[in-house]
């Protein structure tokens, strides 16, 4: 126990560092929130906050999965396409008479299977994640169009649970936001408190060493891409309920928003470093930007300019700090 005090001492230095690390993106979010609410106080109205939470939940779920993927040093460009494909299949099942909640469950499992395809291409096929998921993005998108013939799938009936899933409230909180929060907690524990989470970091930090340490790298990766697919499908189900229809074009370029959120949250694209809490902040930053700029009446053209600049500044500040 002697050594302990010594350990604690530097622990403090590290604690501070890890606090600013967490605080970095958080401060950015705070500044943004203050700015927007000064400019337009209606931003802070409870109704808008609830709106905001519901709006971000879809990107959040995708970005959670993306966090795991990026932590292993990978990337998943196919999430938007998986969202569209699984949501079309789910809607198809509902229309053909499946119980909606069962259909959602099957849809999410299908999403996990699509994700597993990515994982297998990357591990067994030794493809770079970028190119593997770029190819499956095209493939899944194509399959969606083939399946839907380019038309939205409607007529999803009025099962109350299904409607609540995307549109309802639970204790006054929008159900999608509840789904998001519960998922966050589960994934937080998975990532930070279990061997699986550590293995995720270990693979991204040094894959060779992970392999030598007996980590079943391919298995972990396949599971992680499946998780990403599952979460994409889950967010697809929320979207399907919100829109009361499955859109063949749903989820286009959602991968980019998710990746941006992960990076804004301080997770390194080269893997091994980052936290899911940061991703939640990143998601909120993007959400507040979208919502806030709309509230401020900024034209959608300028919105893109602002978004680009905010991402640059946020990442630059993060780099400065860690340097």
């Amino acid at each position, binding site marked *: 126990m002697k050594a302990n005090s010594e350990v604690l001492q530097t622990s403090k230095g590290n604690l501070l560092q890890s606090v600013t690390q967490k605080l970095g993106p958080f401060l950015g979010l705070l500044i943004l929130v203050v700015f927007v609410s000064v400019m337009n106080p209606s931003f802070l109205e409870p109704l808008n906050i609830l709106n905001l939470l519901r709006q971000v939940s879809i990107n959040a779920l995708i970005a959670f999965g993306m966090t795991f993927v990026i932590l292993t040093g990978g990337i998943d460009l196919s999430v938007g396409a998986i969202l569209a494909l699984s949501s079309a299949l789910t809607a198809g099942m509902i229309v053909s008479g499946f119980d909606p909640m069962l259909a959602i469950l099957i849809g999410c499992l299908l999403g996990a299977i699509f994700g597993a395809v990515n994982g297998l291409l990357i591990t067994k096929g030794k493809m770079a994640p970028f190119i593997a998921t770029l190819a499956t993005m095209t493939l899944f998108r194509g399959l969606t169009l083939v399946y839907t013939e380019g038309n939205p799938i409607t007529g999803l009936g009025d099962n109350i649970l299904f409607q609540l899933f995307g549109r309802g409230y639970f204790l006054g909180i929008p159900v999608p936001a509840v789904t998001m929060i519960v998922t966050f907690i589960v994934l937080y524990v998975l990532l930070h408190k279990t061997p699986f989470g550590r293995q995720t970091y270990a693979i991204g930090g040094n894959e060779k060493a992970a392999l030598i340490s007996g980590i079943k790298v391919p298995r972990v990766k396949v599971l992680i891409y499946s998780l990403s697919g599952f979460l994409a499908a889950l967010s697809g189900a929320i979207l399907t309920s*919100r829109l009361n229809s499955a859109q063949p074009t749903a989820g286009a370029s959602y991968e980019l928003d998710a990746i941006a959120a992960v990076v804004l949250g301080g997770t390194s694209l080269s893997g091994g470093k980052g936290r899911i809490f940061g991703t939640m902040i990143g998601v909120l930053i993007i959400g507040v930007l979208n919502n806030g700029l709309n509230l401020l009446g900024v034209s959608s053209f300028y919105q893109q300019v602002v978004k680009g600049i905010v991402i640059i500044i946020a990442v630059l500040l993060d780099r400065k700090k860690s340097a």
Partner: protein
Amino acid sequence: KPDQGEKKIEDLKIGLSVSTLNNPFFVSLKDGVVKEAEALGIEVKVVDAQDDSAKQINDVEDLIQQGVDVLLINPTDSAAISTAVQSANSIGIPVITLDRSADKGEVEALVASDNVKGGEMAAKYIVQQLGEGALVAELEGVPGASATRERGKGFHNIADEKLQVVAKQAADFDRTKGLTVMENIIQANPDIKAVFAHNDEMALGAIEAINSSGKEIMVIGFDGNDDALKAIEAGQLEATVAQQPDLIGQLAVKAGLDVVQGKKVEENIPAPLKLVTIEE
């Protein structure tokens, strides 16, 4: 011009280049073409530009390569399609455009609804229902698309005089975007009374946003697609400026046939627009 007039109808080949098939409107438009051609026993080759002007001119080249006798083009953009039309002209293949015009090149006929007029119809309807000076919002289509420009133009022709357009945001003809953009608009402008969406997809998204806000806001869409008609029946959508995409397709095939057979066709073939409300 090569004397295609001698060809039998069954030997004719029609090339159709669609701007995108990711939108039910254009799917119906395509179906209109294909059904009409089938009925006449004519072969149709369909290509889909996926909303990319550059891909579209490649597509048109590929159609020409396959020896089509007449080109039906639904341009992604009126300016960008001109060179493709010109190259078709240069080897004597007649061109008919659908839904959107071509700025340059010789086009035998344009089969389309009058989007400017459609925009005006929507604005007039709002004025008629809510009176002058009502606060309204506008959900715009893909920035730069001719339908966006023209519907916006028509809408503002009236609205700038008689209504107050307090919010105007692009939602890219997309239902999902229609939903989130509308949520934000409501938050920023709680007092709006009506919203004009440049198409039904966005209108349907907006309705979901309005429903969860608990407000009473009148939504007017554009297109008249199946979902929209159902929503009108259900009392959720106030009205839509209905186009008849399948009719546009049919008329285009007819015109194409006429041209190939050497008959004269009208330069502008209008497909009637109709304001659909619950009364209809």
